[in-house]
């Protein structure tokens, strides 16, 4: 007789078995669904937020670069452009011709460039008119609504726009008719004002030849330069493609090229990737832990059932299929719910995360890929979780399963020394029986503790003083708006005039004001200082300044650039002095100077190009010269300075009176610092805000309160994200813990009943179960305080180690608090379980109330 292996249709039958089995274990299945939902929520939140950050970063980078093209050239001539046009490997070529910058006073705060553009260029630079069209006639103009608002022009085609343009050579002025406008994306830094080809050719004729280019660039004039942008076939390795293109066209190093870093892949740095991978691993790990645990316990408590199915003829494959099928059915219920809830949570959570990341708007993109990835990763987690249980089932021998004895699977020593038996020692011994499961519980509890401790440590380590000191050193700071706008290249360092100072000083509640003046001037060095500069330059490498420029200026010309500051007592008190003693009275005499040090001095043993007590000859822009004695070496805090630094250069700090004697023609101060009566901060802020917005629009201000809010928001976000993550981990741990307790009671039902029969009171049994619980907390403690402590340190270093406002602080109270909470839970869990496990000698299971 021959048996044929036939492919029988048994799907229906398996499915029925599955459904019946699942219905019989409703409580457990609800727990698994709950776990799947939780895992999916975490996945979706991670992917939505992570994905949105990446998308926004790329968009932002494009905005910052000002184009969505892959690459481009700057300052080109028409000749060069024609060469470029002939290249066959590039596409979407377009260009703009630079005319100048808008110099209307209303536009001081909003750096605006004037250009002629091709339509494609307008589109790729995100500045395509949405109403109207690009200028065609000489008197037409197109710009964004931001510029129109600044100029007070209505958003209406045909409106008149009065514009002054600084070409670098001359000031152009004229009235134009609005032919088109658009809403500029808020993150685009530079405003664009477009004029017609006719106008551009008339006032800023395009550079035709190399000679045109040279004459203009030598004078520092860019008006008339042609800036092409284009795409390559792929965005992979743009650097090489650009280099190849340049060599094909025979362009030398003098041709200024640029590639769009939005495509460079470097938009996401290593740290971010590491963090996302870490969190992903954490979520998969924790999801796996709980789902696996429930499946595993379910399978081991149903060994007899599966053994029975085997004896009646189900194959291993079919049994495994049954487990997988159950997992899939539960996933179908859990994953969509998790996706939805996760998406809702990310919408709520992302704005808070976005606040800590500069330039992220906090809008979650409902990208299909986000849901797809979340669903796939959740499903993988579920599938992974039921692999081992499936394996366990297939290893059951049918006979063994039917006779399943209570000692099975427990690895106990053959012999053991006798010790006194109490509920506590019994609890200790019991822990050894399911050590693997205990380890899982301990691990998730410990991780949650470590994570929350690290989170709190990080936020505690954020030093408000350091943060504020790096951002602002007075209650208010008022300066020309151009200094606070990083995209404005023409900073006005003399923008605060006496009227402003008088007005602000007169406000009720102002307790102290102080000014800082600044001008720049090239200094001639003597041989001593030249020697020091050369030594510094040799030691710090040529990246400090291009070799040619250095040779020409320093080696040959013995010259170096310098900033000269004139300061009041308020900024004087904030000086960061590294050498020498300072005293306002002595300083004010006008015979002394405080010299700054180069940025790189730290760790190099060089503090400054001068020593305290030496004489320094300071040259001023108007030709004045005066020799001062060096009182000290020190630095103005960054928020009190010009907010840029020279890689190599001198800095002299003088008292204001002395500065004004030497620079009598200073148009105004660089910055005004204001300290106020705390109670009146708010009213004063309103006054200053109004003043800077309407009265003198060129001015802008920042305040301590603003940075403080910023700081508090950042801390809140960290606590929220870390708190949510560790709460989820903790919840998983506790769920596993409850599950472990309940199933371990069920598994040794007979044993507990026997103990009760031979005289162990309910109280003693409870004490034993509680002991098991508390020993788990104890092991968690040991783990947390040893390995966990290292992990804690590692987490902190990864998250905040590199941040400037972070000071490492040893924080342990969150750990202790968590341990305390877990002790309480450890006592509660056995109390929560119905005592029916000892009630009737023949039946009853342990169940949660």
């Amino acid at each position: 007789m021959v048996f044929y292996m036939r492919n029988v249709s048994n799907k229906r039958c398996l499915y029925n078995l599955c459904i019946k089995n699942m219905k019989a274990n409703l409580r457990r299945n609800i727990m698994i669904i709950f776990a799947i939902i939780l895992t999916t929520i975490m996945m979706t939140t991670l992917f939505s937020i992570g994905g949105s950050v990446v998308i926004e970063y790329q968009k932002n980078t494009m905005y910052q670069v000002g184009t969505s093209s892959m690459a481009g050239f700057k300052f080109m001539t028409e000749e060069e452009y024609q060469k470029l046009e002939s290249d066959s490997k590039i596409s979407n070529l377009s260009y703009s011709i630079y005319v100048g910058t808008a110099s209307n006073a209303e536009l001081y705060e909003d750096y605006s460039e004037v250009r002629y553009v091709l339509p494609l260029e307008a589109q790729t630079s995100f500045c395509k008119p949405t109403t109207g069209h690009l200028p065609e006639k000489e008197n037409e103009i197109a710009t964004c609504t931001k510029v129109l608002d600044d100029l007070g022009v209505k958003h209406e085609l045909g409106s008149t726009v009065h514009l002054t343009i600084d070409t670098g050579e001359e000031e152009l002025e004229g009235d134009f008719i609005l032919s088109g406008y658009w809403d500029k994306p808020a993150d685009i830094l530079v405003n664009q004002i477009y004029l017609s080809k006719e106008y551009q050719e008339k006032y800023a004729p395009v550079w035709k030849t190399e000679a045109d280019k040279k004459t203009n660039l030598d004078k520092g004039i860019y008006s008339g330069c042609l800036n092409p942008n284009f795409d390559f076939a792929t965005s992979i390795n743009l650097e090489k493609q650009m280099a190849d293109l340049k060599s094909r066209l025979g362009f030398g190093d003098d041709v200024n090229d640029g590639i769009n870093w939005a495509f460079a892949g470097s938009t996401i740095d290593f740290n971010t990737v590491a963090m996302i991978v870490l969190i992903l691993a954490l979520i998969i790990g924790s999801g796996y832990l709980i789902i696996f645990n429930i499946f595993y316990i379910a399978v081991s408590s149903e060994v007899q059932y599966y053994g029975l199915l085997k004896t009646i003829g189900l194959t291993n494959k079919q049994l495994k299929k049954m487990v997988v099928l159950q997992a899939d059915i539960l996933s179908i219920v859990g994953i969509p719910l998790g996706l939805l809830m996760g998406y809702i949570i990310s919408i709520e959570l992302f704005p808070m995360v976005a606040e800590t990341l500069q330039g992220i708007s906090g809008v979650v993109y409902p990208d299909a890929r986000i849901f797809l990835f979340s669903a796939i990763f959740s499903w993988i987690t579920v599938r992974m979780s039921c692999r081992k249980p499936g394996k366990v089932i297939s290893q059951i021998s049918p006979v063994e399963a039917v006779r399943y004895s209570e000692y099975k699977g427990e690895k106990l020593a053959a012999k053991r020394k006798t010790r006194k038996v109490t509920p506590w020692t019994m609890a200790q011994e019991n822990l050894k029986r399911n050590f693997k499961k205990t380890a899982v519980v301990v691990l998730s509890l410990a991780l949650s503790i470590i994570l929350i401790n690290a989170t709190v440590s990080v936020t505690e380590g954020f030093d408000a003083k350091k943060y504020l000191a790096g951002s602002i050193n007075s209650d208010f700071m008022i300066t020309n708006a151009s200094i606070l706008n990083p995209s404005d290249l023409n900073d006005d360092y003399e923008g605060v005039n006496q009227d402003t100072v008088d007005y602000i000083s007169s406000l009720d509640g102002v307790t102290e004001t102080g000014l800082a003046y600044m001008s720049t001037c090239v200094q001639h060095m003597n041989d001593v200082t030249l020697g020091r500069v050369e030594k510094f330059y040799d030691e710090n490498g040529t990246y400090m300044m291009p070799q040619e420029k250095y040779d020409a200026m320093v080696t040959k010309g013995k010259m170096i650039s310098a900033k000269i500051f004139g300061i009041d007592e308020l900024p004087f008190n904030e000086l960061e002095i590294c050498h020498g003693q300072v005293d306002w009275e002595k300083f004010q005499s006008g015979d002394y100077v405080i010299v700054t040090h180069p940025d790189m001095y730290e760790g190099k043993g060089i503090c400054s190009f001068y020593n305290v007590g030496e004489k320094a000859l300071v040259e001023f822009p108007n030709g004045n010269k005066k020799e001062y004695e060096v009182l000290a070496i020190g630095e103005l805090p960054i928020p009190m300075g010009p907010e840029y630094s020279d890689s190599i250069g001198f800095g002299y700090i003088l008292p204001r009176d002395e500065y004004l004697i030497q620079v009598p023609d200073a148009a105004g101060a660089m910055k005004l610092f204001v300290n106020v009566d705390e109670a009146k901060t708010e009213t004063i802020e309103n006054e200053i805000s109004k003043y800077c917005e309407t009265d003198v629009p060129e001015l802008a201000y920042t305040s301590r309160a603003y940075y403080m809010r910023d700081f508090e928001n950042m801390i809140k976000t960290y606590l929220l994200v870390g708190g949510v993550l560790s709460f989820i981990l903790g919840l998983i741990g506790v769920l596993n813990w409850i599950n472990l307790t309940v199933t371990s009671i069920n598994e040794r039902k007979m044993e507990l009943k026997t103990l009760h029969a031979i005289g162990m009171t309910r109280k003693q049994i409870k004490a034993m179960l509680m002991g098991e619980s508390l020993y788990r907390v104890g092991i968690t403690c040991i783990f947390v305080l040893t390995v966990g402590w290292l992990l804690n340190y590692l987490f902190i270093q990864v998250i905040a180690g590199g941040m400037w406002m972070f000071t490492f602080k040893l924080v342990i109270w969150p750990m202790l608090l968590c341990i305390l909470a877990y002790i309480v839970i450890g006592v509660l869990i056995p109390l929560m379980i119905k005592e029916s496990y000892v009630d009737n000698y023949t039946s009853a299971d342990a169940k949660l109330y």
Partner: protein
Amino acid sequence: MEILRTEELKKYYNQTSVTVKAIDGVDISVSRGEFVAVVGTSGSGKSTLLHMLGGLDRPTEGKVYIDGKDIFSLKDEELTIFRRRKIGFVFQAYNLVPVLNVYENIVLPIQLDGNEIEEDYVNEIIDILGLTEKKNSMPNQLSGGQQQRVAIARALATKPAIILADEPTGNLDSKTSLDVMGLLKTTSNKLNQTMILITHNEEIAQMADRIIRIEDGVLYEKC
């Protein structure tokens, strides 16, 4: 001297429409040192009777006196404590605690009571039952017969008023069964222990001083 007595002991289970009378008016009296066997077919109610005699299950009606004490007048926790002092159990499935070694299993009821162990006495029992070599072994290292001997030692260790054995040889082969029964009988004789034993094995029942037959919850005594 009477050590155990029941009065009109009844255990009824109410199922949807019928009342199952597991035990229906049982009166037994057992004297000190007596060895009584309870026999009956499966489902006759013998295990239910034994559980009630041991205070593991409360009767629907009637009373159980052990050493003159009405055990069901005790509160639950008191009953448990009474049980560990006065009653020794031997179960069919041995029911040793797997995480405790042989010696710890034997002295468990004494230690749960917080009492000092009478080493000589416990060692005597261990010796009689031939477990001296195995004192430190864990239960999973023992054969069925050995495990049951440990269970017997555990039942004897507290010097209980009465030993209740529920099919103690049910899981053992016939040779081992006779060995274990022989040991059970000699030990209880030596220590003058009272014992009630449930079995469906006539041969084993014959070793008892007295046999009680139970059918459908009703007692038929035969001598």
